């Protein structure tokens, strides 16, 4: 049996790096993936690239690769990552710079692109936006980036051409795992069950520690040993398409049927039609079995062909949010926080700040679930309450005025307010539309050191 082992080395751009090093050194891996490209990350990267053409890749790329390139080379582990964001060529250049500094040679790097439709976005101005009413063209002056979720084609070609480190722009998250499996086993869209299993495996490990006990622990209900040393996941396939989920022995965390069930449904809508660029995956028949300590087998996923279109994510400059917070304590804390919140909103109107939306929360009381559920869960006693006011403005000038008002709550608000903080964030939002898949083709370019 030909076995292929893939490690889930990162689940988001800022994820911990040391578990990835452990995976490479002790996981007996063939591949490690780093999933680092959230929806708006690509818009932020694009803004960076506009300021500096040598940037536009994942901000932690330098640190992540400086820790992992050498062990990956030593242990023969190939790296597949979407850390290229909007500039995989610059990412490859940086990776080569790191490799040279560390005296590493004999590596082939691939930059995979073909997803970027920003330069032709005007062709789609009349297309409807998927998430809310309106057309693409309504946002023409605010659009920052437009990238399609690409499938496995480019990564498979890079691996076939002998690449050791594959750095992509936007591909779907499970593609990072599916691509090396299709390359190794020769699976295609005609292998419905195997493609479904590949997407399932990719989906389970694309969030790193979320399948090994992260986002899971609940003392007294769901115990997770050594959460501080949470290990990251490994999937091990054979050519039948069945796989196990496990982690490096001795690391913290837990791999059990219930961590796998939770992660299988994470961010899934209709489990019979999980749309990816590589296939329409169907998880409804999936079964998990505990095969041993921290070893779970998975089978039963399948797929139903290809969608005719690819999803394109468009990032646009939306607004500014100013968050102001201040804490109140003692038996009357909630009443003083409410007085402060009410006063704050009135003051915005009094001085004529232009805002489009506000929200007032009382942290410790209703900031997570609003009033009805807060009352349902509460015993009616609070020793401390933190006021949170969030205000949306169209521009930064008004955001600064809101922030100044936040600072004034100390001396111009209720008694005993402490620990005021203010933060202004520029909001890059995302919408999507669909384009025929035949219009896009992956491009792969190589550098060898």
């Amino acid at each position: 049996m030909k076995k292929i082992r893939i490690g889930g080395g990162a689940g988001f751009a800022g994820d911990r790096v040391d578990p990835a090093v452990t995976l490479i050194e002790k996981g007996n891996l063939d591949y490690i993936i780093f999933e680092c490209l959230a929806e708006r990350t690509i818009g932020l990267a694009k803004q960076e690239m506009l300021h500096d053409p040598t940037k536009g890749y994942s901000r932690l790329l330098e640190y992540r690769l400086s820790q992992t390139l050498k062990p990956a080379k030593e242990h023969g582990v190939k790296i597949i990552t979407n850390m290229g964001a909007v500039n995989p060529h610059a990412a490859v250049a940086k990776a080569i710079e790191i490799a040279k500094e560390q005296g590493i040679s004999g590596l082939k790097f691939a930059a995979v692109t073909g997803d970027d439709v920003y330069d032709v976005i005007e062709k789609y101005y009349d297309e409807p936006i998927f998430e809310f009413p309106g057309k693409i063209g309504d946002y023409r002056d605010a659009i920052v980036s437009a990238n399609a979720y690409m499938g496995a084609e480019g990564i498979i070609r890079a691996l076939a051409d002998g690449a050791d480190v594959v750095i992509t722009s936007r591909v779907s998250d499970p593609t990072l795992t599916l691509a090396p499996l299709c390359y190794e086993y020769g699976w295609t869209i005609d292998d419905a069950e195997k493609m479904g299993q590949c997407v399932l495996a990719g989906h389970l490990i694309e969030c790193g520690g979320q399948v090994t006990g992260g986002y899971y622990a609940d003392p007294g209900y769901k115990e997770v040993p050594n959460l501080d040393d949470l290990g990251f996941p490994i999937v091990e396939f054979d050519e039948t398409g069945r796989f196990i989920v496990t982690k490096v022995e001795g690391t913290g965390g837990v791999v059990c049927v219930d961590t796998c069930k939770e992660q299988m449904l994470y961010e899934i809508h209709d489990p019979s039609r999980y749309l990816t660029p590589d296939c329409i995956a169907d998880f409804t028949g999936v079964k998990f079995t505990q095969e041993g300590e921290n070893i779970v087998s998975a089978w039963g996923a399948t797929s139903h062909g290809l969608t005719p279109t690819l999803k394109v994510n468009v990032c646009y400059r939306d607004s500014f949010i100013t968050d102001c917070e201040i804490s109140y304590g003692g038996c009357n804390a909630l009443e003083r926080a409410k007085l402060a919140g009410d006063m704050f909103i009135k003051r915005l109107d009094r001085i004529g700040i232009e805002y489009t939306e506000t929200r007032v929360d009382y942290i410790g009381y209703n900031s997570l679930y609003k009033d009805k559920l807060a009352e349902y869960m509460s015993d009616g006693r609070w020793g401390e309450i933190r006021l949170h006011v969030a205000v949306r403005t169209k521009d930064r000038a008004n955001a600064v005025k809101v922030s100044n008002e936040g600072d004034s709550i100390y001396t111009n608000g209720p008694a005993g307010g402490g620990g005021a903080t203010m933060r202004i964030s520029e909001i890059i939002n995302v919408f999507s539309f669909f384009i025929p898949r035949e219009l896009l083709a992956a491009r792969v370019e190589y550098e060898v050191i």
Partner: protein
Amino acid sequence: MKLKEICHSRTGDKGDISNISLIPWNESDYELIKEKVTAEKVKDYFSEICRGKVTRYEVDGICALNFVMEEALGGGVLRSLAMDKHGKALSMALLEMEI
């Protein structure tokens, strides 16, 4: 009893849509939660949070339910004014539901 006594749960987010899984510890409790925890009941429970439709998917293979709540994340995870923009904590609220 509260759902927390027999189930666990995880929340995911996509745009303005929150999905909450409901997974019984014992698969023998799957029929009970299918009967008790309807889409209508979840919609009513989260009435201040979810302004759109709630769809319930039955995932028989793993004996779990998946609730998909539209217009539930304050206009979308990237532009919401909420503290918990992703709605990560919503699963713990569902587990507080009495059945």
